[in-house]
């Protein structure tokens, strides 16, 4: 109210000026002002409402029917394309997953095969149940044929890995020779007592040795004593270095 005092600028007196009327109105309320206030309130309310409504949805508010239909069609097409894209990507994902899993299966199989071959070739240390055969020469030297028979019978009985005296792994290429004061296996001289560690089904292995005129009988005829122990777990530590074959190569045509 204080700032609405009449304009001090002198104006031609007789008819009141607009400014004076305005300041009079500010100072002196009247019935007309109440009416005007109500109408102005309605205007303000409507204006704010309109502004709000326009802000809320200003993207499509001014569109006519045809434009809205076009927009809707465009959206439908876009969503259809997106759906197709989703389907395509899902199919690609499924393909990749199945190829990954089949590759994984092939890899597992190959790894398993490699493990088996490693054990057969004697290139890795192995452990498992088996028997330990101790041949002690009491009355005479154990004949190399008898030892070889022992190894062959063990192979017959399903021996999966063998080593002699903890030094020499017995594999497919292993050769036995007579040596001075003992035998030579794969170029390694061994002296008695011979200890043969075998991994396989223990009772089958023992059965493979214990028949009439079998390896044990032969060794005892030679003048040796044979002890067979069945063990829950034998470690075979000696290995054969892996070598690449020089002449033989896989024939993939068969």
């Amino acid at each position, binding site marked *: 109210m204080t700032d609405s005092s009449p304009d001090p600028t002198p104006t031609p007196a007789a008819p009141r000026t*607009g400014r004076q009327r305005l300041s009079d109105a500010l100072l002196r309320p009247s019935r*007309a002002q109440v*009416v*005007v206030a109500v*109408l102005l309130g309605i*205007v303000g*309310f409507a204006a704010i*409402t309109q502004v709000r409504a326009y802000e809320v949805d200003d993207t499509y508010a001014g569109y006519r029917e045809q434009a809205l239909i076009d927009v809707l069609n465009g959206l439908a097409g876009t969503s259809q394309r997106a759906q197709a894209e989703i389907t395509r990507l899902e199919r690609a994902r499924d393909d990749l997953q199945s190829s990954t899993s089949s590759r994984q299966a092939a890899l597992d199989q190959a790894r398993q095969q490699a493990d088996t071959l490693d054990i057969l070739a004697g290139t890795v240390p192995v452990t498992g149940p088996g028997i330990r055969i101790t041949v002690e020469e009491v009355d005479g030297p154990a004949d190399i044929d008898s030892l070889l028979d022992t190894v062959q019978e063990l192979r017959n009985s399903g021996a999966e890995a063998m080593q002699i005296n903890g030094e020499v792994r017995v594999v497919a290429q292993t050769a036995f020779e007579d040596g001075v004061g003992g035998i030579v296996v794969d170029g390694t001289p061994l002296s008695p007592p011979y200890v043969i560690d075998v991994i396989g089904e223990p009772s089958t292995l023992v059965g493979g040795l214990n028949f009439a005129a079998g390896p044990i009988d032969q060794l005892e005829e030679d003048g040796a004593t044979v002890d067979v122990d069945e063990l829950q777990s034998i470690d075979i530590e000696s290995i054969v270095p892996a070598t690449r074959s020089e002449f033989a190569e896989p024939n993939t045509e068969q």
Partner: protein
Amino acid sequence: MIAAFGLLVGVLLGLFFRPDVPLGLEPYLPIAVVAALDAVFGGLRAYLDGIFDDKVFVVSFVSNVVIAAAIVYLGDRLGVGGQLSTGVIVVLGIRIFSNVAAIRRHLFHA
């Protein structure tokens, strides 16, 4: 004073209640607001001229709003709603400008 207070109350009520515009009124509200503004500026000019009469003001306010809305409604029926509302806005805009010019002359003598 009371008039300015009324405007303020209306704005605050609009901000506070955030009313939804009924769908049927949606095309007419903006035109109605502009027509009401025209009536308000006309009333202010008349007041400054010393010929203000509250009855006239109320009648002109209501008739302005109703006629503007009716023109837009008619235009929508005839399929020229967009163009007709543009025309109404132009006319009302011209009137608002001339009223504001008169008010300006009264208040600033310029």
